[in-house]
């Protein structure tokens, strides 16, 4: 009776929330893939030369520009946050309230740092270099529009994630999942599986960043 066409559930021992998150992520994958595909199409169809990412995204420390340094740090931070998330899931299943909450908060902090640096990057591009969604001084106008649209959509995902990480950390800290407190939205008894579901979302956002990084900054 273990086959997935059997009665009750197709995926045994997978809670509803986790299944729903997986399916949502598949749908969201399509959104990001189509964003990136559209970016590639636009980039290859535009008539003006595409700006050189390693020059646009360079930062100068003491005069010497270092290409992609900010993006490298941001990527490092986001991937580190995936590590703390994994640990949070681990301690969640051990019902270690304090450690889980702290690790969730650490993840949220890394996420917030990422969004903050992204805000810095945007400000620099807009204020200092005059990049706009409709034009930029370096080349093809679509550079600005795809950049703001795609990184903005990803940054929005990270921000939502940070928000939910903080809410989740608070609930874990209060011991809601030890007592089986009922969720606000679901009215059902919560448990530590929600930490893993949150983790799925967070790793997804990380993974998407890897693709954005590869296709936008390295190409």
């Amino acid at each position, binding site marked *: *009776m273990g086959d*997935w*066409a*059997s*009665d*009750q*559930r*197709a*995926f045994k021992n*997978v809670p*509803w*929330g986790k*299944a*729903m998150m997986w*399916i*949502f992520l*598949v*749908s*969201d994958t*399509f*959104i990001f893939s*189509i*964003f990136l595909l*559209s970016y590639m*199409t*636009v980039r290859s*169809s*535009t*008539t*003006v030369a595409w700006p050189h990412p390693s020059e646009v995204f360079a930062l100068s420390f003491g005069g010497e520009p270092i290409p992609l340094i900010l993006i490298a740090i941001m990527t490092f931070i986001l991937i580190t946050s995936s590590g703390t998330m994994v640990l949070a899931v681990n301690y969640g299943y051990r019902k270690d309230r304090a450690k889980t909450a702290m690790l969730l908060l650490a993840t949220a902090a890394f996420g917030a740092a990422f969004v903050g640096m992204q805000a810095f990057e945007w400000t620099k591009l807009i204020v200092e270099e005059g990049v706009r*969604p*409709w*034009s930029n001084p370096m080349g*093809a*106008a*679509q550079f*600005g*529009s*795809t950049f703001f*649209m795609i990184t903005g*959509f990803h940054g929005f995902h990270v921000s939502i994630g940070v928000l939910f990480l903080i809410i989740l950390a608070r609930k874990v800290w209060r011991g809601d999942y030890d007592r089986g407190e009922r969720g606000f*939205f*679901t*009215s*059902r*008894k919560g448990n530590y599986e929600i930490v893993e579901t949150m983790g799925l979302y967070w790793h997804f956002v990380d993974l998407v960043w890897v693709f954005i990084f590869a296709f936008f900054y390295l190409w």
Partner: protein
Amino acid sequence: MADIVPTAAEDIPSAEVAEVDLYHAKSWWTKYVFSQDAKVIAVQYSCTAIAIGLVALVLSWLMRLQLGFPESFSFIDASDYYQFITMHGMIMVIYLLTALFLGGFGNYLIPLMVGARDMVFPYVNMLSFWVYLLAVVVLVASFFVPGGPTGAGWTLYPPQAILSGTPGSEYGIILMLVSLALFIIGFTMGGLNYVVTVLQARTRGMTLMRMPLTVWGIFVATILALLAFPALFVGAVMMLFDRILGSSFFMPAIVVMGEQLSYSGGSPILFQHLFWFFGHPEVYIVALPAFGIVSDLLSVHARRHIFGYRMMVWAIVIIGALSFVVWAHHMYVSGMNPWFGFFFATTTLIIAVPTALKVYNWTLTLWRANIQLTLPMLFALAFIVTFVNGGITGLFLGNVVVDVPLSDTMFVVAHFHMVMGVAPLLVIFGAIYHWYPLMTGRMLDEKMGKFHFWVTFIGTYTIFLPLHYLGILGVPRRYFEMGDTSFIPDSAQDLNAFITVAALIVGFAQLVFLYNLFRSLRHGKISERNPWKAASLEWQTAAYPPGHGNFGEHLPVVYRWAYDYGVPGAPDDFIPQNVPNNAVAESHAEAPSAADDAEAPRT
């Protein structure tokens, strides 16, 4: 089918069954307005969809009046006509058909048919409806802004969709795109619920291969929607950027009225790809639930098991998968590489195989069956005929060389109205006549129903058969009026006037149907339990019509597929899904009696 033993009772996850009280509404507001009950949400979805559908109906009358009697109506000018076309198409395809099939029938039938108390996350499900309502409100608002709703055609092709000169390019297009984005967000919340409910919340004994085909159709259509809507969402976001921020995703360098616009270097074809990557699966998002529902209607009202159940399931899945690789057959004349046309024509024609298989199976279900010509059955039969007609003209349009001369003629209009307008609507009507007793406890009026059926069925043919002919003559679509041409005979105009009269009559019949819906709420004949003697779970509930939490204290246990009809020796000639093999119950009581009745003959 092999015997499948339901999982033992103690294996039920307690959180999902024991908490019956979770599903009871606490107050009038949470019972009828902010309800988390999928059945109430289904009714809310359906009423909203039908209300906005009425707007689309009126728009179609106005268009037909203009086409049939050009220069007779001073209040319709060319801009109005384009706005009517755009809003009629958008409303019918997305806000009516998609919302009614998935939000309406999906919400009502999935939990009941798979034996669940409700959708897995009722709160999210409720949000889904309210976001959908917001999308509809934004859509309606576009009628009242300066410039009116967008007149870009329902495909919203750039560059013309956002250029001045197209009606509604001021605010209408913005509201249209925002409304679409909202619709997609709302739908995603509901769609995730439908998929997870089917996958993870079935009752004991309800295997995937015992689900009624209705559930299969809605399930696969929802997956299609979750994967196809992202393309429309991204397209809408990008076009909003182009319109509001002046970016050039879809906008090439362009000169308007002798003036060079600031756009440059975008790709209009990209939007067409995005739109049709959504748009073609959308056809099947509408068609697959119709396929599923019509299979159940045929089986119940012909008192015979569905022919080739497994094949039917796999056909639905295969059609769903193929629908993602045919989208560019909408773009043969857009300027693609001809090799693409070859590829997409091939995949398009391959879809005819599983589709034809379904038609054969429906026909074979009727072979030597005990056909009851009830209202749902009439509509189901009409669907088969209409769908075959629409499908055959699809073969014309799927082939590149035949399509090119027919592109942008009334032939295309007639084709898609037959296959994805009339055919699914016939199923919706049949389904409403079939499940109305379950929802309200009363039957719809038979006389009005018969009138509605015959006028609709014959009427749609008098509308759309001549339209094919006009298309072959070369009458183009989306023309406000023809004026003088050298290649279209004057008599074409007489045919147009005839079609208009037919369309008005068919429209009137829909008002009779609506009157019937409202009147029967109070004055309909009280329906007995399970009036159609159906075997699927939604008719076997403790309360009739089913209440909060759908089933009684215990969820039903399923022992068989949903198609044990015409069983010799069984009481009432059918066996409900929740009756065990060794106890063919006398009634449709929920708990089968322990007494050993005769062994149920298996089909």
